[in-house]
């Protein structure tokens, strides 16, 4: 096609594409603050030329496509780092809660142990003094109470985490269902050769959210994408999602199930893995150490008390009994169950020969301070070792979480540099397309004038 109408048609194509480009710019500006939005740009192509003999004539401009700018590799890295960071954050938050019980050197279990032995020391020069004996029982009571509180707080924290697991699994299922649903919509649009970019952005954003919970890998397939955890559990395959479920195990913990397969222990990333790690490893570990210490301490003190005689005038003298209740066999639950077994201060067996003034057996009781009561360690060495462990786990996790969040920040910067909307850039584009539109409009009005001239050809027109 050629001639004035050809020119007009070229100008119209330019008007249309400029308008389209302005619309894209406008859409970018509108979504400048939309989370997960990837900026779009129009890709223009010259219209297919027509040939007249040896002449090849242009036919204007066509809109080839509107493309979203995103870097798939970067998205994968972002997913992985999000999984890492969410797991560490979930762990750190819980570890900080755990370590509060071990924060003070002058109160809590460690100080209670010290105070108990010091109360025995105070009784030593005056072993028949009832007030000093009562002070020993009070110190024993404080120790038992703090063991109970530490164990109960850990148990409560653990049962809260159990709830978190259930909630997280529910959230995973909601997300995977939405992601599969979006896959369906994307494939419909793609079959119609329509722009699915906004849906892809939305899906990418949901996968990012899912990465916050579990370690998913995105595998491109013929039907869109598949999502799999690193242990090979399929969560989404094309347009189908597979829900996870929870099931209460014999120990009362909620296990994560994929069908009939228990995947609780094999989750590697995301807050769910962090939550499970704290619930199944860290808390039981600390609890077990508290149990060992409570049981070892109670047994050693009871044994020492049984070697001496209580404060009484009876003949023959009476050997001492338990100061603490006998810990459960196998130590589990010892910290939570620890209790002072006696209320009568005369039952402390300070005497080594039955006489009221003897302090001989207090030396045996005091010796527990330096005796191996748990894992070959003295009570305080065992305890301070526990403080060190809890502190160093927390501080290492904190350092790892900081590092992960910095990496994540850098990746987000990179993503922003590829996909983020720059208002300056959009303003420049707007000016550019506006100018193009105005120029094309000018061509149209020129063609209009030329057409009028052609129509009025041969008719006198007054020349002003």
């Amino acid at each position, binding site marked *: 096609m050629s001639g004035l109408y050809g020119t007009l048609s070229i100008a119209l194509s330019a008007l249309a594409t400029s308008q389209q480009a302005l619309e894209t710019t406008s859409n970018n500006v509108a979504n*400048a*603050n939309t989370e997960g939005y990837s900026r779009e740009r129009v890709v223009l192509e010259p219209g297919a030329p027509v040939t007249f003999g040896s002449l090849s004539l242009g036919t204007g401009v066509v809109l080839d496509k509107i493309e979203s700018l995103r870097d798939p590799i970067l998205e994968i890295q972002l997913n992985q780092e999000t999984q890492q960071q969410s797991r560490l954050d979930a762990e750190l938050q819980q*570890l*900080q809660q755990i*370590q509060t019980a*071990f*924060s003070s*050197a*002058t109160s809590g279990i*460690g*100080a209670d*142990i*010290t*105070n108990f*032995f*010091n109360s025995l*020391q*105070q009784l*030593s*020069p*005056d*072993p*028949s003094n009832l007030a000093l004996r009562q002070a020993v029982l009070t110190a024993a009571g404080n120790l038992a109470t703090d063991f109970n509180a530490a164990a109960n707080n850990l148990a409560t924290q653990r049962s809260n985490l159990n709830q978190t697991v259930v909630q997280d699994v529910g959230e995973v299922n909601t997300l995977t269902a939405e992601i599969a649903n979006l896959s369906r919509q994307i494939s419909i649009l793609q079959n119609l050769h329509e722009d699915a970019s906004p849906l892809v952005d939305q899906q990418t954003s949901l996968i990012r959210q899912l990465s916050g919970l579990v370690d998913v890998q995105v595998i491109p397939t013929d039907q869109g994408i598949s999502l799999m955890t690193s242990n090979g559990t399929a969560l989404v395959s094309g347009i189908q999602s597979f829900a996870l479920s929870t099931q209460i195990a014999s120990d009362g913990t909620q296990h994560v199930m994929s069908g009939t397969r228990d995947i609780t222990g094999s989750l590697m990333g995301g807050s769910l893995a962090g939550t499970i790690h704290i619930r199944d490893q860290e808390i039981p570990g600390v609890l077990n150490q508290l149990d060992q210490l409570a049981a070892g301490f109670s047994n050693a003190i009871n044994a020492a008390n049984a070697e001496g005689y209580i404060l009484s005038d009876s003949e023959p003298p009476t050997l001492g009994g338990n100061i603490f209740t006998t810990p459960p066999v196998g130590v589990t639950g010892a910290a939570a169950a620890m209790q002072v077994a006696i209320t009568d201060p005369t039952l402390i067996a300070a*005497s080594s*020969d039955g*006489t*009221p*003034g*003897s*302090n*001989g057996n207090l*030396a045996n009781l005091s010796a527990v301070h330096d005796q191996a009561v748990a894992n070959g360690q003295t009570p*305080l060495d065992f*305890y*301070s070792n526990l*403080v*060190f462990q*809890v*502190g*160093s786990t*927390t*501080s290492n996790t904190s350092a790892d979480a900081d590092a992960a*969040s910095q990496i994540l*920040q850098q990746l*987000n*910067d*990179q*993503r*922003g*540099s*590829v996909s*983020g*909307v*720059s*208002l*300056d*850039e959009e*303003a*420049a584009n707007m*000016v550019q397309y506006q100018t193009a539109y105005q120029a094309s409009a000018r061509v149209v009005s020129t063609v209009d004038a030329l057409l009028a001239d052609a129509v009025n050809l041969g008719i006198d027109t007054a020349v002003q």
Partner: protein
Amino acid sequence: MRVNPNPMPDLLAALNQDQLAVQQASMEIASGRTVNVPSDNPVAAALLVENNDEATFNNGYLQSLTVIQGQLSTADSALGSAVTALQRASTLGIEGANGTLSDSDRASIANELQGIQSELVSLANTSYEGRYLFGGTITTIPPFVLNGGSPSGVYYVGNNGINKVSVGGGYTLAVNQPGSQLFSAQGNDVFLALNNLILALQSNVGIGDAVGALNAASSYFSAQRVFYGNAMNQAESQTTYLNAAKLQISQQENTLSAADLAQAATNLSQSQLDTQATLAAISKFTQNNLFDYLK
């Protein structure tokens, strides 16, 4: 390379870091400590548990030593009085051995000696805060009972028990001597010697020998008293040692956890400055873009 057009998350993260630093510095200043939770310094947190134990026990030993010292000095001064009484008895015995004395003179000396005997019994039954000091570990009843049926004129109802008390540094101190080793020591029983002297004066037989025996028993008794002098010296030097250690333990605690307040204050003002700078950057960031210049 294209610049990330939206640095807001970075700025907010930086702000968060600045605020954390402010919080950390404020916490250090408020508590005066660098170790507020174990993760602040796991090694120091563990050592602080041991440090608290040392500090508590250091005070505990000092407290025990105060009690022990009271007990030792009460016992020692009772024994001092007993030595004086025994010297008086010896003087009276020498007087009684004088052949020119009449029976009634000797009887009155014997009477006086009986008075010394009961004084000695009451000294041997000295108590400190309700505990009898010379009954071994039988501390609830008076260990010496006057009884004419006994050859020595008294019965000892205590035992041979000795209490030891830990006073720090792995060191234990014996805090009592039983009456059976002081007043009624085998072969040097002051009660027996005194009673024999009374009997000798009453019968006017063997007074000189009885005085000799009393002197021998008295000097053995005086020698035993040294135990208390030594124990008090040891208690004294251990108190000095513990007071010195106290300073060292608290210095150790400071090294482990005390905040350097000048440094913390500098950190605080630095991080507050950083916070303000970041806030300024955030407020500037959104102010201008190209759209503002298009007319």
